[in-house]
Every structure is written in structure tokens, then in C-alpha cells.
């Protein structure tokens, strides 16, 4: 064993060896989770593993499974074509919709489906002009122009014929392709390509790509949190490298993972969990977080934040022993062999067997040595006020926020996400009435994608209608944030103002949304106080 290194503590300086300075590699690493994005917008998760080790499910595309070992080492952004048994990497410059060079071939027509992306890309690659030679005046929509039988096409596929060849054959055997407008030709080609020449791009898992893919796949499981809403949560919460953020996440861990990634391993993400074990291991794994980012997530148990159920006595702090921590502190790197372990090892026949045993043992010890306990997380949470609170929960947002606000430093922002607006309206009113916060904003987002092409720019035909609602605000200082005038002065001012304050409105609306928290004059909007000043 070598002598122990004393840890020197300084304020952060850029240093070449600082692991937090290393940005994620642009090459797919062994074990990376990636997203495969197809030409038609489908998205699949895959983990790239050289050795399957029995646990890694290969990726399943159209009911067929494909190994992912050959994706390791490819640069992110590479397009692969789905073969009969393998994903074939394509050279740089290829897109998920293949370029189609030759348009002077025969073809048929079919209904003009909604294939915007495909259409856009293909049309653009091939048919740049807006002026059209053909139009649809002689078009017959009877689906008889394709002379190939479906069976023949299926056979071509089964025999492993190249996708491009199948598409060519289909076009050659289509009676009406020639008479179509250029756009319809492009659409036709793209549709066939999407079916017979499937391609996808290897996309890095980032908060945006992950959330988008999950929103397509299982929106309900993540409370319909659309990716643009997640993006706003990350900004409005003001998190940055070194923040302490307290998060309540029932969106499968997407919020927790996204925060950890946004903070790059600096600072702490206190994520609240119920039950035995920190949850959402699978989703967090998809972020490909590095060691620092992973250890910046501090799982805090609900008991340590919200307390125990009524009637149960909480464990008192004095009597509680953090056994996990005590255990860990007994360990010493690199964990010298105890006699019985040594004896056990001596008995092993092969060197490989010994090495495997030691590798497993050391891996276990390293994990143990670097893992903080819920008790420590609680201590850290209580040691310093948080810089932001983020709530994306299936529990009551109002109550959750009110109970978490004491952990937030004054003048720091909080963000509450909810898939419905009503719970946030209640939360809004409660904050206003208790005068806990200011700058309250309740919003949702309208998000639309566009097809942008010369002469053919239009919004996408489909769009998501709701990505959830967000309530943001800034906590007021509990001591100096409420600074009421004493009644004497108020009375005097009221008298001075005379009748101007007017009678109580007969309108039964109460409070209005924000008059109360607006600065200005007490109980009045800013304009009135200006008039006072003018005197």
C-alpha cells in the first residue's frame, strides 16, 4: 500500500487533469445508450455493447433483433442502414432518407399520405424547382399501376436484396410514376424508401433527445412532460455548475438526470425518493452520466424531507446511526485481503479464476467506497439552503412546494411542473395569499415545427397540443420579504388619498392574479401611488 495522499482543497482552478473539464466523447463508447432516429421520425433506444454479457438486449427493429457491437467506435451522427441481420454504417453525408438520383423512371401513384419529413428531405434532394412540368389532371387513383405483386416484393426482401434495389424495382414496375408531379414522385420514392430502405441516425442521449424520445414513447409515464417544458425547467430554475437543487421527480428520473447533466458534475442534485432504493436507475443510465455527474445526484429519502406518516414517531437524530456510512469508513483502498479470502483464493486453480474474483471484489469495493448514504444526503441538504427547487410530481404540488420552500434560499427561484393547470392555479393562489413568493408566472408553451423549403414552407400537419404547465416564482425572504406599514401610517395615507381609493368593487372576483404581489403602494396598483407622489 502506498502512503496516503492528503487532499488539498482550493477554490476551483482550471486544470488540465480535472476530469470535469472533459466533455463527452464524440465517439460511441462501450456501454453508451444511444437513440436511433429513423427517417419517419420513429425513435428507439439502444445500448451499444461489444459483449452482451447476457444482459444487454440487442435493439429490436421491425420485430427483428440487431446486435449493437458494431456501433461502438462510430462517431455520433452516423447514419446506419437496417440490413437483414446487421446495422450497416453508411459514409458521412448520407441522410436517413436516401438521396434518390434518377427521376426518369416509371412509377405509380398512391394516396398522398402525411409524410412530411420524408417528403421534405427527398423532395429537396431531388426536385429543387417549384415550377412543375406535370400535374395531376390525368391521374387515376385505382391502385392498379403497381405491376409487382406484394408477394414478389416480400420475397425480394426475404432474400436480402438491397433496399435501394427494391425501391428501384418498384419504381420501374410502376405504370404511372412518369406522369406524376415532381412532388408526388418524390413522395412516392420517399415512401418506398422508408419501407424498404430503412435508415436511422445514431443520436447522443441528451436531456432534449431523451425527453423527446420518451414523450413519443410513454408520455403518460412521465406526466406528459414535453421536452421544451423540460428545457424551460432547466433554465427557469437557474441551475448552473455548483448549484444545490432540490428536486421532486416523478417523470421517470428525466428531470433528475437532466439537472445532473446540466450541472456537469459540479454541485448537488438532491432528488427525493420514497421506498427502499433510489428509483429510476434505468432512465438515469440512459443519460450516460460520467462519474462526477452521477455522484452529484444525492438521493434524499422522503422521510428526511417530509417526515413520517402521522402516528409514527420519527427516528431521533441522536440515536440514529448511519450504518452504511460506518461500514464504508471501515474500508480501506485497495482493500487488503483478509485471511479467509486469501485462503479461498489460494485454493483456486487457474490464475484467470483468481483475477476474475479479484476484479469483482474490487469493483464492489470501489462502488461502496464512493457511494454516499441517504443520511449524508440529508446532512448536506440541511447544511446549506438550496439555490432552486424543482417539482415535477404526481403528489399535491401545493403542499409539496410549501413543504420544500423552507429549504430554498431567499430570492431563489422554484419551478413547479404539472400536466394540469388547476393544481398550479391553487398553488399560485396559496403562494400569493401566504406572501411566500413573487414574480409568479403560470404558463404553458405552444410549440410548432415547420417544413421549410423554397416555395413550400408550411407548419407541420401535426403538433402536440400540450407539454404541461409550469409555475415559476421567486421566494421572498421570510423575514424581510414582508414589510408592512403599521396601521397608523396606513390610516394616515388612506385619509390623505381621500376618495380616490374608491369603493370596493362589486365585482366578485377576488384578489386578481397579481395585484397583491406587485410592488407599488399597499393594496393599490402602481399608478395610484404615482399620483400620491405627484402631490
Amino acid at each position, binding site marked *: 500500500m502506498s502512503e496516503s495522499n492528503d487532499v488539498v482543497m482550493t477554490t476551483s482552478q482550471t486544470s488540465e487533469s480535472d476530469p470535469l473539464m472533459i466533455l463527452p466523447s464524440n465517439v460511441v463508447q462501450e456501454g453508451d445508450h444511444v437513440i436511433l432516429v429513423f427517417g419517419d421520425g420513429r425513435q428507439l433506444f439502444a445500448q451499444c455493447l461489444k459483449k452482451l454479457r447476457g444482459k444487454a438486449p440487442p435493439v429490436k427493429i421491425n420485430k427483428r433483433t440487431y446486435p449493437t457491437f458494431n456501433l461502438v467506435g462510430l462517431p455520433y451522427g452516423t447514419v446506419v442502414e437496417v440490413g437483414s441481420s446487421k446495422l450497416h454504417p453508411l459514409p458521412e453525408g448520407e441522410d436517413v432518407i436516401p438521396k434518390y438520383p434518377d427521376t426518369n423512371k416509371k412509377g405509380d401513384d398512391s394516396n398522398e399520405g402525411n409524410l412530411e419529413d420524408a417528403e421534405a428531405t427527398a423532395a429537396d434532394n431531388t426536385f429543387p424547382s417549384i415550377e412543375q412540368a406535370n400535374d395531376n389532371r390525368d391521374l387515376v387513383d385505382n391502385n392498379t399501376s403497381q405491376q409487382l405483386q406484394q408477394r414478389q416484393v416480400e420475397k425480394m426482401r426475404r432474400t436480402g436484396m438491397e433496399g435501394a434495389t427494391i425501391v428501384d424495382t418498384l419504381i420501374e414496375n410502376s405504370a404511372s410514376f412518369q406522369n406524376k408531379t415532381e412532388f408526388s414522385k418524390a413522395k412516392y420514392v420517399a415512401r418506398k424508401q422508408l419501407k424498404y430502405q430503412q435508415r436511422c441516425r445514431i443520436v447522443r442521449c441528451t436531456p432534449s433527445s431523451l425527453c423527446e424520445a420518451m414523450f413519443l414513447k410513454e408520455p403518460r409515464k412521465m406526466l406528459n412532460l414535453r421536452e421544451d417544458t423540460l428545457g424551460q425547467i432547466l433554465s427557469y430554475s437557474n441551475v448552473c455548475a455548483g448549484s444545490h437543487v432540490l428536486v421532486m421527480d416523478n417523470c421517470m428520473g428525466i428531470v433528475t438526470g437532466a439537472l445532473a447533466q446540466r450541472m456537469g458534475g459540479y454541485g448537488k442534485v438532491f432528488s427525493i425518493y420514497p421506498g427502499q432504493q433510489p428509483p429510476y436507475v434505468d432512465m438515469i443510465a440512459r443519460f450516460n452520466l*460520467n462519474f462526477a455527474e452521477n455522484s452529484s445526484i444525492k438521493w434524499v429519502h422522503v422521510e428526511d424531507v417530509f417526515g413520517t406518516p402521522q402516528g409514527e414517531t420519527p427516528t431521533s437524530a441522536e440515536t440514529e446511526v448511519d450504518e452504511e456510512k460506518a461500514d464504508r469508513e471501515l474500508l480501506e483502498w485497495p482493500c487488503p485481503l483478509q485471511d479467509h479470502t486469501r485462503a479461498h483464493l489460494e485454493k483456486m486453480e487457474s490464475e484467470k479464476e483468481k483475477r476474475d474474483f479479484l476484479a469483482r471484489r474490487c469493483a464492489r469495493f470501489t462502488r461502496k467506497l464512493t457511494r454516499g448514504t441517504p443520511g449524508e444526503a440529508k446532512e448536506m441538504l440541511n447544511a446549506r439552503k438550496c439555490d432552486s427547487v424543482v417539482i415535477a410530481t404526481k403528489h399535491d404540488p401545493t403542499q409539496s412546494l410549501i413543504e420544500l420552500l423552507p429549504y430554498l434560499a431567499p430570492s431563489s427561484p422554484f419551478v413547479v411542473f404539472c400536466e394540469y393547470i388547476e393544481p398550479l392555479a391553487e398553488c399560485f393562489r396559496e403562494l400569493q395569499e401566504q406572501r411566500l413568493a413573487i414574480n409568479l408566472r403560470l404558463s404553458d408553451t405552444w410549440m410548432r415545427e415547420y417544413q421549410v423549403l423554397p416555395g413550400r414552407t408550411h407548419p407541420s400537419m401535426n403538433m402536440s397540443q400540450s407539454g404541461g404547465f409550469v409555475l415559476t416564482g421567486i421566494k421572498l425572504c421570510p423575514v424581510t420579504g414582508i414589510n408592512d406599514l403599521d396601521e397608523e401610517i396606513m390610516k394616515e395615507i388612506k385619509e390623505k388619498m381621500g376618495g380616490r381609493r374608491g369603493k370596493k368593487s362589486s365585482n366578485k372576483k377576488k384578489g386578481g392574479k397579481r395585484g397583491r404581489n406587485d410592488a407599488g403602494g399597499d393594496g393599490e396598483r402602481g399608478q395610484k401611488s404615482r399620483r400620491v407622489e405627484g402631490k
Partner: protein
Amino acid sequence: MDFAQPLIESESVTTKSKIRHILVKPSENDDPPKLDDMLVEAANQAASNVFGNNNTDSSQYPERVIPQSEKIEENALVVIFESFDNLDFCYAKSGEIFNNRNGHFHHDDFIGKPYGSKIRSRNNQGYGFVFLLKPTPELWARSLKHRTQIVHELDASMIVFYLNLRPNMVVCESGTGSGALSHCIMRTIAPHGKLYTYEFNGMRAETARQEFAKNRVGHLVEVLHKDVCGKHGPGGFDRPQASVDAIVLDLPEPWAAVPHCGHILKPNARLASYSPCVEQAQRTIEELKKCGFHSIKTMEFRLKEHYVDEVEYDPPPREKRPRLPTHLGPTGKSNTGTKTATDAEAEKQEQEEEVTKGQPAATDQASSDNATAGSKRKKLLVTRPFAMMRGHTAFLTFCTAGNTPQPDPNQ
């Protein structure tokens, strides 16, 4: 702003673990390796597996945290919250006074107070007040003096998000404009990232530079007075090939800068272009495709804000319809028979009296109805979208650079 402060380091579970690479002496002869050497080798391997990046020294992983400024100090930037849509800022200086329509506010009353305080005006008996807030890029964007159109918080958050920005990245931005977006970018690339921001208007570049310094974010940004489009002379960003992690363009002619972007972006890095007009987006996209960009997506985002109101609805009204009397009652005048003209006249007058008398009675009746129905009144918490919204800001085009380095257009 807080994000720009140097981080404080302290011991972490990992630093305490004392995990590090241990040197093993290579065995001198062909003897089977000793168990302890095998252990050390396995331990080294386990350490590099856990840390990744071949960095096996646990002392590299302390806890790091930004210092928290709780109280307002001399010269600190303070956001002054007057009302929901009226924010301002000042740099706290003892002796100075902040004036607005709510009154006179003395900086001496600010200094030493915690952020999040409510401050009373020194004039008009303290009737006026403001809140003092800790600056964030969002609050800053709402309080700064616009020198140009700015990128508002929704679009700014989308840009940072879809560009996958994270700490320690190198980002280029043009133009700087009022620096609103610049602050958002810097927050995310701190502590050791760098924003290069390009502005061809000398005044704006200089003002931005000074503002960044005053806001104490100067070490995260370099303002370059330059025309990136190269109308007169070489354009571009003067950064080495494939050295930049992300680019944001907010320019009238973004397409002219695109070839330069292709040159300096790292493989698979992201670019965002913010253009109010669709023609700008269209032309930019044509250029992006020529320069090897892919996954091009044009988006529009609108913020829909909502009021919260509490309303009480009465049940549907129930009251008596005013009626004309059908007979003249106990006066004995007959309804039948002939009427003189004066009779008719008198009758009419009488009826009018009846009606005017009847009305208050009916209202009394209704209000007492309401009073009894008070308990039946429904209280509802409702939301209502703002009457006006920002209908359009810009088309945001996002895309990814290809993996082949692009040539320098200036050569």
C-alpha cells in the same frame, strides 16, 4: 451573478475514499504473480472503470458548490422588482438613490439586507415599495435596457436546451446585441467554458463588454468587434477549425455566416439560428445543407401565460317579471264599459306609478334571494390566458454539424 463566482471545494465521499492508481513493481522473474500484486492490478482496473477517462485519482472529485450571496453588498447588481412587468436594476452604492414612480429608495437601505427583501420608499411615508432580487439571466433580460431586440426567456431557454449546452463548453454567438442571450449561455457554460460573442456595431460591443464586467461575468466571455458575415473583408469567427461546441446566430443575414460555422464547429456539434422571417430561415437552411449540417429542424415557440382568478358564480337568477295590473282593484272602476279620454289618461299614469314603485321592490326581493342563496354560490379557482401574447418572436432553426471538417471559407 452567482453562476460566475469561483466554486468552493470541500471533501467528498469520493475524496475520502483515497482511491488512486497504485504502482505495481513488475515481477522480475517468471514466477506466478503474487496475490497482492494481482489485487493491486485489479484495484487499479476497478478504479479506472469507476471514474472513466483513465482518471483514477479520487482527489479530483471534491464537492464543489457556488458561494451563496445572501446579503446585498456594495456594488452588487440588484434587480428591482416594481411590478410583474416592470423590472429594473441598479448596482448598490451607498449614498445613491433609486427613483421610480413608487418613490425614492436609498441604496443605504439595500446594503446589508438579504435578497428577497421588500424595501419601503423614504418619501411618501413609505407608502411605495419595491422588492430587491438576486439577479438571474431571466430577471436580467427583463430589467436591462434594450439596445436591440433581445431573445426572450422562452426562446433563450430553448436555444440553450436544444444546443445541449453544458458546463465548460466553448460557444460562439453573433450578434451580441443587448447581451440578453449571452447571460443565459454563460450561466450554462460556467465555470470554465467560454463564450465568444461577435458584434459589428462598435458601440454595442463596447457597452456589452462593460456590462459583462460590471455583472462580474467578464471571465466567461470575450466580446469581439467583428462582422462575422464578412461584407467588407473576411468574415467568420477567427477560431481554429473544429474547436467550438455550439453556435448561436441572431443576425439579419445568418446564411452568410454558415460556412464559417461549418468550419469551426466540432464534429456533431449543434447550431441554432434565430430569425424572425421565414425567408431568412429558408435561405439559411439551404446554406446549412451545403455545409454538411443535418437533422435540421425549424421550430416556433410561444409562451402562453395565464392569470389566476377566484370567481364566485351565483345560481341563475330567479325573480318576478314585472306585470301590468289586469284589474284596477278596489276603486270600483269597471274594466268594462266606455272610457273617457281622461279616464284613459289617468289609468296610464297610475300604471306608470305602479311600475316604478314595483321595481325597487323586485330588486329587494332579488337581493334577499341572493343573500339566502349565498351559501349556494360556487367558488371557483380559474385561470385565464392573458389577453395579449407575443404572437411571434422568431423561427428557431436547430441543426447538427457533420463529422467531416469543413474548409475555411476565408482561404
